[in-house]
């Protein structure tokens, strides 16, 4: 009774009944590909974990070259449960990127970008790049040797792009070299710029999903599908996944704590075998394998331009593969998708093994 009174009070002022009505009406189709529906929500959940643990870390972290490493060391050794918050933050970042890849590829193969969902796809690709930037900027923040050199190499690669490369490098680094200025700048990106942009695009993305409802893959479209209610059925299933994710994160934090390493020293030479994080590894490995010169042009530049080109292609997928009925086009795109996925997986493994 009191609950109803509260609801009425809120509804009079915020019209929550329309929202809750819409939520109650939302339905999710049930078919053999339904499992993939969970990955968007899982990515969102892990993002929320990132925001919460990130804000907590913000209470103690200091973004300057003199203090950053020591402040993370402080969090991990002196702050109560600091080790837990920090390790969860680092592990959840990786898990989120993994689920993001799964979400991206599942949406691709299940053609959830067909009309009218093109904008959902585009906003999703933007979010993908935002998350990659989150990973890249966050990685530097502990200011340890590995992160310092990974950032050096990464921004160096960006600088190789013709015409805009050099100004981009200077913009990213806050100068010509990776210094404390880079750290402060990356911190600003990581806790302010990227969260703000992510919020905007997340809002667009999630709203569009509610607007258009869950897409049904072409292969099961013919069937007369069962539908389960979002609240409570789908949401409870989501919840199981999220609860298990919490368990996984806790286990990873306790059993495989994230390393701190040694404080970065800009004057020391790079340690041997520098590798970026796993989600960049396939690109790094590709660049390592490219010959120095291809058709007279610098091999590395060509490789980077190729990756940039593919990134742009990602945006226009729904505008190229437009016809749901075209079987041949579907097949072509499926092959492209499988090749891309295989390439990423193989290159990542090669990157680790060598």
């Amino acid at each position, binding site marked *: 009774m009191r609950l109803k009174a509260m609801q009425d009070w809120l509804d009079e002022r915020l019209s929550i009944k329309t929202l809750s009505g819409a939520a109650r009406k939302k339905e999710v189709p*049930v078919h053999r590909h*339904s499992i993939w529906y969970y990955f968007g929500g899982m990515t969102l959940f892990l993002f929320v974990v990132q925001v*919460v643990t990130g804000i*907590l870390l913000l*209470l*103690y972290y*200091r973004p300057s070259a*003199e*203090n950053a490493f*020591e*402040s993370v*060391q*402080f*969090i991990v050794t*002196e*702050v*109560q*449960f*600091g080790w*837990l*918050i920090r390790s969860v933050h680092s592990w959840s970042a990786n898990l989120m990127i993994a689920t993001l890849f799964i979400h991206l590829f599942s949406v691709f193969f299940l053609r959830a970008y067909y009309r009218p969902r093109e904008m959902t796809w585009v906003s999703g690709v933007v979010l993908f790049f935002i998350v990659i930037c989150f990973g890249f900027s966050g990685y530097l923040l502990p200011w340890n040797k590995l992160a310092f050199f990974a950032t050096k190499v990464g921004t160096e690669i960006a600088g190789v792009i013709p015409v805009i490369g050099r100004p981009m490098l200077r913009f990213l680094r806050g100068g010509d070299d990776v210094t404390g200025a880079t750290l402060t700048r990356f911190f600003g990106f990581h806790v302010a710029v990227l969260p703000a942009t992510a919020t905007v695009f997340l809002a667009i993305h999630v709203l569009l999903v509610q607007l258009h409802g869950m897409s049904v893959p072409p292969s099961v479209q013919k069937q007369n599908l*069962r539908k389960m209610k979002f609240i409570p059925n789908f949401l409870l*299933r989501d919840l199981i996944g999220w*609860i298990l994710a*919490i368990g996984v994160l806790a286990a990873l934090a306790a059993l495989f704590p994230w390393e701190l390493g040694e404080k970065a020293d800009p004057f020391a030479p790079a340690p041997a075998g520098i590798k970026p994080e796993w989600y960049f590894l396939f690109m790094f490995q590709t660049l390592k394998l490219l010959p120095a010169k291809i058709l007279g042009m610098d091999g590395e530049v060509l490789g980077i331009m190729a990756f940039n080109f593919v990134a742009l292609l990602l945006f226009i997928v729904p505008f190229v593969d437009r016809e749901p009925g075209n079987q041949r086009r579907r097949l072509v795109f499926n092959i492209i998708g499988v090749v891309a996925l295989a390439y990423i997986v193989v290159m990542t493994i090669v990157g680790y093994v060598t």
Partner: protein
Amino acid sequence: MSNMLHDSPAPSIGPSGVEPGRRRFLDYLLGTSAAATFGAIIYPIIRFMSPPHVIESTESSVVAAKLNEVPVNSGKIFKFGSKPGILVRTEAGELKAFSAVCTHLDCIVQYQAETKNIWCACHNGHYNLNGKNIGGPPPRPLEEFKVNTRGDEIVVSKA
């Protein structure tokens, strides 16, 4: 999860569904379990947010000693971040602080009251009270720190 779908409703007892007692028990368990898990998540977060014993992370300044611990014409080794420092009260009563790491081979220096210099026992290196290397193998002066007093505490910070 499709095995959870039943095509026909199970026999129901009561208007609100299967065995209201069981349902209420499950709801009760779910509620308390959820509350406990929520508590188990909030508890570390609250502990995290409460200030730890050691307040600050980096020591860009440290309380080296109390005023009465450093008599005239004496020196005291203190910990400055991860390195040792030496605090000296000169004959004139002035307080000075330097890095205690000898610039020759990293031994820890000490104050020598007889010569009123800073001395390194390892290879007989000498520094004057400006930190300048004045004798023996040390090739460079000792890094000097800033000294301030706060009440009865001596606070040393990076120059």
